[in-house]
């Protein structure tokens, strides 16, 4: 029994690392640009396809293709902010949500046109291997993904706290007008924020590729979890999103283990609704300082 619980917790934490990359991206965009990006999952999908095609055509390991998928998605993010999101900043919730929503719909269907609905997988030397800690069973590919996800989250934290650009981003998130008065160029900060968020989604895609199939709708799995995590962790709070993502992963995994294979999401959504009922602003308060 104890082993079963421990195993479920480990499985949950490992996948929670991936949820964290996606939800940190969502929360970063919301914190800085004040837009909820419903298309974040689709950028995970793009990251997966980049890694898939690099692996299928050039034999590049998905973990190595991280250094390609992240910059590519960073550039997409900058362009996205510059050409699309910037134009709806003043329009209020509804056009913003629907713009990102339409982008999600667009990307899914373009992917469907270009790549068909087939599942694409990449086999790596570590896809099938696992490490055993006593009775615990830890798949190698997931462990690597988790470790890289945690390193990237750590780097983001350092970026936000130790660089001028990162500090400018946090300043713009706290109070856009005052930040502008201090000489911060909001356009540039916004572009970088969206770029970084998409780069994280791309990283999540590449990290998933060794153990998860790529298909056009794959992003929806992750974006739903990310939304729950982001709301639990308080929209705009990076550390909150990270902790909540790991919690979500564990909750989902325990739900699958003890309620039924199709019940992971019920547990997660029940947690969301309960949290919203008890603490409408999430568990962690405002933007992490």
């Amino acid at each position, binding site marked *: 029994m104890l082993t079963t619980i421990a195993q479920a917790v480990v499985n949950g934490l490992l996948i929670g690392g991936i949820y964290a990359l996606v939800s940190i991206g969502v929360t970063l965009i*919301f914190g800085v640009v004040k837009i*909820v990006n419903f298309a974040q999952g689709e950028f995970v999908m793009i990251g997966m396809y980049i890694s898939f095609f690099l692996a299928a055509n050039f034999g590049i390991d998905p973990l190595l293709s991280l250094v390609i998928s992240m910059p590519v998605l960073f550039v997409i993010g900058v362009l996205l902010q510059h050409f*699309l999101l910037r*134009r*709806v900043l003043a*329009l209020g*919730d*509804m*056009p913003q*949500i*629907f*713009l990102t*929503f*339409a*982008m999600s*719909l*667009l990307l*899914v*269907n*373009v*992917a*469907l*046109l270009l790549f*068909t*609905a087939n599942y694409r997988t990449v086999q790596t030397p570590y896809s099938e291997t696992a490490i055993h800690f006593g009775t615990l069973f830890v798949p190698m590919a997931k462990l690597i993904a988790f470790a890289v996800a945690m390193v990237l989250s750590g780097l983001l934290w350092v970026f936000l706290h130790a660089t001028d650009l990162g500090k400018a981003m946090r300043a713009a998130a706290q109070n856009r007008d005052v930040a502008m008065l201090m000489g911060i160029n909001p356009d540039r900060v916004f572009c970088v924020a969206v770029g970084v968020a998409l780069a994280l989604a791309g990283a999540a895609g590449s990290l998933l590729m060794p153990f998860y199939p790529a298909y*056009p709708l794959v992003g929806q799995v992750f974006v*739903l979890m990310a*939304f*729950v995590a982001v*709301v639990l962790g308080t*929209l705009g709070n990076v550390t909150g999103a990270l902790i909540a993502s790991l919690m979500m992963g564990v909750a989902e995994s325990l739900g699958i283990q003890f309620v*039924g294979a*199709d*019940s992971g*999401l*019920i547990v997660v*959504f*029940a947690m*969301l*609704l309960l949290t*919203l*009922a008890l603490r*409408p602003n999430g568990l962690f308060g405002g933007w992490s300082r």
Partner: protein
Amino acid sequence: MQGFISRGGFWVGVLTAVALALPLLVSSAFAIDIFIRILLFAFIGVAWNLMGGYAKQLSLGHAAYFGLGAYTSTILLIRYGVSPWIGMLAGGVVAMLASLPIGALCFRLRGPYFAIATIATAQVLMLLFLKFRDFAWGAEGTTMPNLGDAPLMMQFEGKAPYYYVVLALLAIGLAITYRIERSWMGYYLVAVGEDEDAAEAIGVDALRIKRNIYLISAFLTALAGTFYVQYIYFIDPNTAFSFNVSVEAALVSIVGGIGTLWGPLVGTVLLEATSALLQSWLGGGHGGVQLTVYSLILIGVILCRPSGLIGILTDAYDHVVHAGAARAKEVPLDG
């Protein structure tokens, strides 16, 4: 805008006449199927628009009520032999009852939080119905019993009767919207939508207004759910609680123009007609083209005309009428 509606009597008459005559003029079952879809989604859009358009409560979970309506009438029909006409109203009542706790939970949230919470409620219901295997057929779903031509059981031969049923639903939805738009409730709704805090400050009970409009919106959406499963003769949780229903309800309103009487209808006609045309040009097998075009239209509308396409129509109408009037009087426009 005002002009379009006050001079509207005549045009509403023309529109009604055309709508009533359409199945007599068009015999193609394919075309009538498209008309039915247009009217159905326009109706769902109208129901959504009361909440999302007038009160600006961005719900992305209306599939919850669509599904409850669909399941209530189907369970009553198959388990107890109750006519779907009664089941439809029962479904509406179930949806209203469900909207109370859902509203109590979600109305404390604003903007994106509200949208995400409503998505979650619809998803939870879908997941629950996937689990109700004995009671509601689980993931496999079930087909409707085929009773042949049985109007009392909401089953008809041919598609035309379904067309008139959904046309009547849409007419009811539009009439309700029209009445609400011109009532105190309508003004309160718009006030809450514009600025909830300011509305509360001048004495509008925002929570009560939102709860009341949610009841109406949920009731109407449930009627659409019953109609849809009766029309396609099949129900399963993925159809009944499809996220696409929630999205379509909102999209047609946004494209047409939220918070306007005719917006959802205009939006649905444009989107469904485009997708139907694409489908007939390209045939099947081009999965994705339809929704690609769909999303491009949406992006275009949001960037170029965030208030929706209905504005273009009314502007064009005013332009034609005023230009005509000006020519008749021979008064220079800039004079």
